[in-house]
């Protein structure tokens, strides 16, 4: 009955994954996006949905990258890349920025990760390698303060190791901080009862997800508690925190 013989390329592409995350960001939300893959989410919002982006280096109402040649080195995002400001933006200093973050005023942050555990522990800042230069930035403040922490990640590492694990082996960014995990294969909610799969990418089966995950999973897709739905009919039971 295993479907693991399906091609490993099944699942969402990076841009599909970004759209899948964006779908769960409600209208009017304030969102902070981490560096890298999370940045794709900004360009993937459904038509007509207004979301406000905060960047911790001091801008609420961050807009897209400027056209080439119009970059301003004093208007950048947390990844130090040039951005723009929308009409209705506001600039502020770092203490005020982390008042927003630590004070619970940001609805959602979307972060990349190295590992995430069954209890929502996040490890995304250091390999723990003694030769590495430790650098944490604002990640620990974000996971401690933002209302919902979404992780966006490949389900497994390039070498096939699970990134979703029973317990993180890398140094933690925060304990029990992740609300939901979006991978190329599935969407998983972090619950007090462990990880619950609420959505599968087209062509992906629960078996495949389970095989590539380092901890137990519950099948929480609508109408399913353990059994597989017919391929392609996975319903999307997750509507964000609207």
């Amino acid at each position: 009955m295993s479907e693991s013989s399906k091609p490993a390329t099944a699942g969402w592409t990076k841009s599909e994954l970004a759209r899948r995350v964006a779908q769960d960001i409600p209208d009017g939300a304030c969102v902070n996006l981490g560096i890298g893959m999370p940045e794709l989410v900004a360009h993937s919002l459904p038509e007509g949905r207004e979301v406000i982006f905060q960047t911790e280096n001091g801008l609420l109402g961050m807009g897209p990258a400027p056209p080439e040649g119009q970059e301003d080195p004093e208007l950048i995002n947390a990844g130090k890349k040039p951005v723009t400001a929308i009409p209705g933006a506001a600039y502020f200093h770092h203490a005020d920025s982390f008042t927003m973050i630590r004070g619970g005023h940001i609805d959602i942050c979307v972060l990349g990760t190295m590992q995430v555990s069954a209890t929502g522990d996040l490890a995304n800042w250091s390999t723990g390698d003694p030769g590495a230069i430790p650098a944490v930035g604002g990640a620990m403040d974000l996971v401690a303060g933002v209302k919902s922490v979404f992780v966006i990640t490949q389900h497994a590492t390039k070498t096939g190791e699970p990134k979703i694990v029973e317990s993180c082996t890398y140094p933690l960014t925060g304990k029990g901080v992740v609300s939901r995990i979006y991978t190329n294969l599935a969407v998983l909610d972090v619950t007090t009862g462990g990880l619950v799969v609420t959505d599968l990418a087209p062509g992906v089966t629960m078996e495949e997800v389970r095989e590539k995950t380092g901890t137990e999973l519950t099948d929480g897709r609508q109408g399913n508690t353990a059994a597989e739905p017919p391929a392609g009919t996975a319903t999307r039971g997750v509507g964000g925190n609207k």
Partner: protein
Amino acid sequence: MIDKLAANAAEAVSDIHDGATVMIGGFGEAGSPIELIHALVDHGARELTVVSNNTGSGRVGLAALIANGQVRKMVCSYPRSANSLVFPELFRAGKIELELVPQGTLAERIRAGGAGIPAFYTPAAAGTRLAEGKETRAFNGQEYLMEYGLRADFALVRAERADRYGNLVYNKTARNFGPIMCTAAETAIVQVREVVEAGGIDPECVVTPGIFVERLVQVPEPAQESELVKEGRSYP
């Protein structure tokens, strides 16, 4: 489209529940959101804990809310002033509680509440009667008090101008507690003289970024508390 403008003050305060903690901006009448307070009097929520620097004057605004028996407890730094009649009377009669907090500690507690800081240390009031019952700790040989961050269910604030996102600018010394109260309340309700288009406020000059504001009410010509007091008015 994000638009935080409520139809009127009555609608904006309609979900303030009995027993709520409500921060009310203003230093004396400057920055006091008098129309929002009067709407709260009409609304009638009771057993409120009110955090505000003063206790109002005459029988309008905050004093009217207190006179109407809606306030169980005041948290403030200076509950008496020239025309403050209502609070002293109820306080002496044992009908209202008071938590007296030094003004800077009050401001910092509100700011901490809004910033996710549960507690901090301050030198203010160390060694005084207001330190009684408080935890103290020495840093570099000086004594400090531990004070807790303060949060509220609602804040009622007055600002000068807003856009639909809730970005705010204030007017002169009417700014006072408004910006920090917006950060410390689950629901910050702000009355403004003017609402402008998104982009109508210079992003370098925004004092309260819209993320801290949940509802706006436009009151183009707010009443002046001292004028009402002078005229001997009371509310309702």
